[in-house]
């Protein structure tokens, strides 16, 4: 018994020494470690899978082109399962154990909000590809994002309605119980008025309702050129149907809440002559977009969605910043990130003082039940 224990202790001691030697080697390795986080499993699994693939593609391209600062880039991708607690755990692991230089992640705002304070505390620059909640970057000066925040879509929608659709009178309808749709409608109203247009009706509806006719009758009586519907696709389908039934034939405009195949299933032909703002369209004719779509398809055998594009962009922005910083010093990377001016798949990106990107949005039209790329609008 006693002998066994001695052998066990001896083995453990040897393992410990080997472990120390190897971990020592790791520190001197000639690679730059970047952390990635996304919900690869759980309720938003397709979002996580897309972002992971976007990040992998970007890293692969950089490595093929000679790496970063003369070193190879290594991506360690972690699964947050769409759960804030899990996000905090993997964030701490990436920073304290894997010693990552920067983190690209994560998808959901609630998870990014769990990871951001940890990044800020350890001074590890972070960029979220798709978290749209304004609070995420307000955590601190090490936190950036690659997507535009929600209210921005209202601004772009107003510009599109005024300049491209030549609308002068607009009406809004939104869900009073949802900050996303309310915020979009308010920013649409402000920008449209600022451009010289008139908002003839600004109508709310309660969450979960199916009858919008009272509001729509009022809206149509005010004779708008365009109706801005900032709801999610399932409400949009019903609103569009009822608006058409009440005799409105003009264009309908909305935000990325429209982006679902179910929009046409519920709305049918009523959503024709509808337009919405989105982050990315695979049909955008810009060469950088087409090249990305081609490379993504070759590697993963499918068409990239907006999440893959934004993750690809987020990784590009981060690696570009490290390159310009010329070192892995967090202070310098942070400064370089703030000075970003790079042309990526989702547009030309610079950051405002709250570390939110200033960039263009694409407008997608519904034509014959299909989503068709319509235009790129700059803010």
């Amino acid at each position: 018994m006693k002998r066994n224990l001695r052998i066990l202790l001896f083995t453990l001691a040897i393992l410990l020494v080997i472990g120390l030697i190897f971990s020592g080697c790791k520190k001197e390795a000639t690679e730059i470690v970047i952390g990635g986080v996304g919900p690869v499993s759980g309720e938003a699994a397709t979002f996580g899978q897309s972002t992971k693939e976007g990040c992998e593609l970007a890293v692969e391209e950089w490595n093929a082109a000679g790496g970063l600062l003369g070193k190879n880039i290594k991506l360690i991708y972690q699964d947050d399962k769409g759960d804030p607690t899990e996000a905090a755990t993997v964030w701490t692991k990436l920073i304290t154990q894997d010693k990552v230089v920067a983190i690209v992640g994560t998808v959901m705002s609630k998870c990014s909000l769990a990871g951001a304070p940890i990044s800020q505390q350890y001074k590890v620059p972070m960029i979220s590809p798709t978290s749209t909640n304004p609070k995420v970057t307000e955590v601190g000066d090490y936190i950036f994002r690659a997507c535009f925040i929600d209210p921005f879509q209202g601004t772009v929608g107003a510009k599109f309605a005024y300049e491209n659709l030549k609308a002068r009178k607009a009406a809004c309808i939104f869900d009073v119980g949802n900050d996303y749709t309310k915020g979009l409608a308010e920013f649409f109203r402000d920008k449209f008025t600022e451009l010289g247009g008139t908002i003839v009706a600004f109508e709310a509806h309660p969450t979960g309702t199916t009858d919008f006719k009272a509001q729509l009758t009022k809206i149509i009586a005010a004779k708008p050129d365009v109706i801005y519907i900032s709801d999610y696709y399932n409400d949009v389908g019903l609103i569009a149907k009822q608006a058409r039934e009440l005799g409105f034939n003009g264009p309908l405009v909305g935000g990325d809440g429209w982006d679902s195949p179910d929009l046409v299933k519920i709305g049918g032909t009523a959503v024709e002559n509808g337009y919405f703002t989105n982050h990315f369209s695979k049909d955008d004719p810009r060469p950088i977009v087409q090249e990305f779509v081609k490379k993504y398809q070759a590697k993963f055998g499918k068409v990239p969605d907006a999440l893959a594009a934004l993750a690809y962009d987020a990784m590009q922005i981060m690696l570009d910043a490290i390159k310009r910083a010329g070192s892995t010093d967090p202070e310098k990377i942070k400064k370089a990130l703030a000075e970003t001016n790079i042309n990526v798949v989702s547009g030309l990106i610079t950051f405002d003082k709250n570390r939110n990107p200033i960039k263009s949005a694409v407008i997608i039209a519904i034509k014959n039940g299909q989503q068709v790329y319509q235009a790129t609008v700059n803010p």
Partner: protein
Amino acid sequence: MDISTILQQIFNGLQLGSIYALIALGYTMVYGIVRLINFAHGDFYMIGAYASYGLFFAIGTLVASSFSGPTAAIILFIIILLGSMISGGTIALLANQFAYKPLRNKPRLSSLITAIGVSMFLEYFLSALPVVGPSYRGFPELIKKTTYNFGPAIVSNFVLLDLGVAAILMIFLTVLVRYTKIGKAMRAVSQDKDAAKLMGINIESVIATTFLIGGSFAGVAGLLAGLTYPRIYPYMGILPGLKAFIAAVLGGIGNIPGAVLGSYIMGIAETFATAVNSLIGEGIAFAILIVVLLFRPQGLLGEKVADKI
């Protein structure tokens, strides 16, 4: 608001009221006879909508290939109508058999809580069922939508259909309760269960019939709601169910024409209040309800009944 807008809003209110009325009729009948506020009634309505949806995809192409032109559409609609009634009625019967019947002679609060339990069970069970699932579904267009101009107002055939069906069902129920043998038995059960039993009435079969009819009405309401507002999901019954219940109370719970009257008042009040101010519209509609009930606690058409001692 000019006159044409007002006319249009009245039609909007009538449409909303018709959907409430279809649900409220079953609600009020079950309450009038069993004295049970059946909170699961809104979910029978949801079942009716899903049954119609499923039937359409199961037999839609078969019917379309066996018959031609408008006959196919009419036959399909009739089959789906019957299907929605049968499914709503069956679920109501099952709920009565397994959840309400064992509690018949227990305190009324127990069956009320059970009704809430049945409601939630149906919602969550269907969400968990893979063939139904929790997400929204677009309802197929069984009947082609056409619109008519009533002066300056635009009215679709769905509004007329909803109004017509609500009226037919109301008349059917009134005749059934007033002039038929089963109606007489229902009234007897509602007045005094024990005396009815002594008179040789099989109370349980009367109550089961009541649930069957009430549930099948809810099923029809589900079908019509699916047509009018073509988006269905497992929780679609909660809000209309609640409003229909309020409408039934407004009209005088247990009173059949009262339920219809209450529903139309609710529908029109909600529409106009929303048109005046969409932020507090529903609040105004419910404030009207409170005021009415303050002055007539028994509801608009309800009768004052002295408490039985």
